[in-house]
């Protein structure tokens, strides 16, 4: 951690990259203040020889470039008596609350030393310290530095020197935090990617070629990453005047035949609600990636929370069944978004894919996620003769959609209730028939195994979703070691509900623990409303921005109250 500009985030990123090159997996998340520039910053990194999707209960090493405003971050960096704190000796005094953990404090003359080295800032030395401490090869650290900072006046030789000097420094104090050894990496499939990038790529894999967006934190870097790549693929991303425009542009393009999407966060999703209803009623595919942040209202734009679940599920007026999905890890942002495109196109229905600030802005070292099996594309009407009924009631509820330009199949996509042809109708029979049809197509579809990640067996079941899932999986693994058989069910498909699949997954369950990051227990109430839960139900439901850690879940599991 350090003041804005001190280079804390850069240090973390370089460490992640170096470790990745050497074959480790890892996760980097960041915490920043509201300032655009000059605020304080914290990079949290977890590294391991196997894929990492969440942080643990505490950190082993804390490196402070300075202690300015460190108080703001204390809650986010739990330490233990085994932890090591490394601080620049010029950085001021550490907050007493941190030392209360019992962690050992080592101060190093990073600033002093850097002054004597050309183009070297203290954070590069710090990287050298950390690399040596963790067992990340100095060579990889040096390469990472050169690639990133090379353009900024740091020569390769000086970089190598700085890393080596940092390494030297770490021999001046006893330590014991080497990473578990790795087997090395497969250069083609070892990826470094953020959740927002992964989601964008998932959309591209799914065939999205048009995007209309309005910037909003923490979603903006998704379209920023996507724009040039979409262009390369012959697609187009347009920045609209507001969120209402962006979702309407998406519907227009999708009506025109192009798989299309938008990105936003809570406040923007709220603005899109009316038009999402249009997508439902007029049966126009559309993908909405909502990267959740702290709410309500403009809330806490830079922090994570799972509290847009309600609006995603229920925020449309009238009876408006639609698709809601939740991504569970940085890499899963790719899979889930890809699936969202497939489902939306197949079901001619808007799909909201929920990610959050934690996932979206976290950087991960992961295996390249396998593409999903190709799904059948949008069912398109073939030129025929006779009357074309755009909204014909079919056995599976899906009616072939005609693409503008096709002769003889002209129709009007209509958000007014309509008959099978598409002509507005206020008759009870047409209303019922179309409501039934729109519900049926979602209910009758076979979602396969992707509907949920299910892990383990046991009478105790954790039900969770989204970014909280990783902590739940980890807690369950620990509980198993402690002798408690725990099963985890983490639905990726949040809507439509899957009562039969859930009943099967819950078969034999006696106790359920619901885990989610919301103040009002939105997920718990949603489950209650739609599923048969075991008699004993407990809930861990906390608002953001602090993540729910595996230890808190484990503690709850083992100390039944």
């Amino acid at each position, binding site marked *: 951690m350090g003041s804005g500009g001190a280079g804390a985030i850069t240090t973390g990123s370089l460490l992640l*990259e170096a470790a*990745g*090159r050497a074959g480790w997996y890892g996760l980097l998340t960041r915490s920043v203040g509201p300032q655009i520039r000059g605020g304080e910053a914290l990079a949290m990194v977890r590294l391991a020889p196997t894929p990492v999707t969440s942080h643990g209960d505490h950190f082993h090493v804390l490196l402070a470039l300075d202690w300015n405003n460190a108080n703001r971050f204390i809650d986010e960096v739990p330490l233990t008596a085994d932890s090591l704190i490394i601080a620049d000796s010029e950085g001021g005094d550490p907050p007493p609350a941190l030392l209360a953990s019992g962690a050992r404090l080592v101060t190093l003359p990073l600033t002093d030393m850097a002054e004597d080295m050309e183009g070297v800032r203290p954070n590069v030395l710090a990287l050298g310290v950390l690399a040596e401490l963790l067992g990340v090869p100095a060579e990889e650290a040096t390469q990472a530095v050169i690639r990133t900072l090379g353009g900024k006046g740091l020569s390769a030789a000086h970089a190598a020197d700085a890393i080596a000097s940092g390494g030297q420094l770490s021999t001046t104090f006893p330590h014991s935090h080497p990473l578990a050894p790795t087997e090395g990496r497969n*250069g*083609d*499939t*070892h*990826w470094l*990617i953020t959740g927002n*990038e992964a989601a964008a*790529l998932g959309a*591209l894999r799914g065939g999205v*070629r*048009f995007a209309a967006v309005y910037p909003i934190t923490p979603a903006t870097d998704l379209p920023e990453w996507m724009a040039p*790549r979409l*262009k*390369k*693929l*012959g*697609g*187009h991303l*347009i920045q*609209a*005047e*507001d969120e*209402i*425009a*962006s979702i*309407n*542009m*998406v*519907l*227009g*393009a*999708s*009506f*025109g*035949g*192009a798989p*299309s999407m938008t990105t936003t966060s809570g406040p923007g999703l709220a603005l899109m609600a*009316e*038009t999402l*209803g*249009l997508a439902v009623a*007029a049966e126009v595919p559309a993908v909405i990636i909502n990267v959740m942040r702290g709410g309500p209202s403009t809330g806490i734009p830079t922090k994570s929370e799972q509290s847009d679940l309600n609006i995603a599920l229920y925020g449309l007026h009238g009876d408006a069944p639609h698709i809601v999905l939740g991504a569970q890890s940085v890499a899963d942002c790719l899979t889930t978004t890809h699936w969202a495109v497939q489902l939306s196109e197949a079901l001619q229905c808007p799909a909201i894919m929920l990610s959050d600030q934690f996932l979206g802005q976290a950087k991960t070292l992961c295996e*390249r996620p396998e593409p999903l099996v190709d799904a059948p594309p949008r069912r398109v009407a073939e030129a025929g003769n006779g009357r074309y009924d755009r909204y014909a009631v079919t056995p599976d509820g899906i009616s072939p959609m005609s693409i*503008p*330009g*096709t*002769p*003889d199949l*002209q*129709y*009007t*996509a*209509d*958000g*007014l209730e309509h008959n099978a042809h598409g*002509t*507005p109708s206020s008759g009870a029979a047409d209303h019922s028939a179309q409501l039934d049809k729109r519900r049926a197509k979602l209910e009758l579809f076979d979602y396969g195994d992707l509907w949920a990640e299910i892990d383990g067996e046991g009478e105790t079941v954790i039900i969770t979703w989204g970014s909280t899932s990783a902590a739940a999986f980890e807690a369950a693994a620990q509980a198993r070691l402690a002798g408690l058989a725990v099963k985890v069910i983490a639905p990726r498909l949040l809507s439509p509900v899957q009562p039969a699949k859930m009943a099967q997954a819950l078969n034999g369950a006696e106790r359920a623990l619901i885990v989610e990051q919301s103040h009002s227990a939105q997920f718990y109430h949603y489950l209650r409303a739609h599923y048969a839960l075991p008699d004993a139900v407990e809930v861990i439901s906390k608002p953001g921005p602090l993540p729910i850690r595996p230890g808190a879940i484990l503690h709850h599991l083992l100390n039944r109250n």
Partner: protein
Amino acid sequence: MGQAEVITPMYSSKDYKSTVKPIWCPGCGHFGVESSLFRALAHLNLPPEQVGIVSGIGCSSRIPAYTQCYGFHGVHGRALAAATGLKLARPELTVVVTSGDGDAFSIGGNHFIHACRRNVDMTLLVMDNEVYGMTKGQPSPTTPGDWDSKIAPGGTGVNPFAPMAVALAAGANFIARGFAGDPNGVAKILVEAIQHPGLSFVQVLSPCITYRPEEKFWKKTVHPNPVAPTRDPAEAGHRLLSDDGFTTGVFFIGDRPIYTAAVGVGEGSLDEIEEHLAI
């Protein structure tokens, strides 16, 4: 203009008309506008399936279903945004937005100014009856401030604004006004508007005989633009800001930059993109 090219007409007005019966009041100005649109499309010889008619909500916005074109009858006020998406995804289609003064200028005002600014190649046809017809008679942004209504007894006291001046300031590339009582005149303007690149804005005065019966007398009030259209925004601005609101004709024909970025085929591949993610 449309007569420059000699083409064998393949389509007549009725090829653009669907069998759905309009819900409009007998005598509504929108009937005339609809027929002008059909004439213009026929004149341009556009296959109905190559035309997208996009609208919001209102009596005027009901037009898509009355046509044999592809129609998109969306939510209130957002037609221009939907049309933008459609045109970018399918540049080869002819896209016409049919809207009302409430739909385009009140709730849709933001999309109105930004569509003008962005200047995508499509035509915005606003049937301006200076009232909300569909919701039974409330003032719109073009309603005179002293018009008495239930919701604003004695009038709103608000100056109506000049949509053509706003469109010009915002960046529209073709600006004209027609009168529903002159379907041929409107058709002619629409032909020109559709042919002109960029965002063409056509305001058509279209009487609401139910809530603004006095508008029947518009036929006596309208008068043709005495001067030729200008290509100079500053000059057009001067003229439109001193206009009485009843002059018909073409006012501005611009050559402002057009938003062309469109969905097509790129020279990159997904594999290339993915390769860059490997470390």
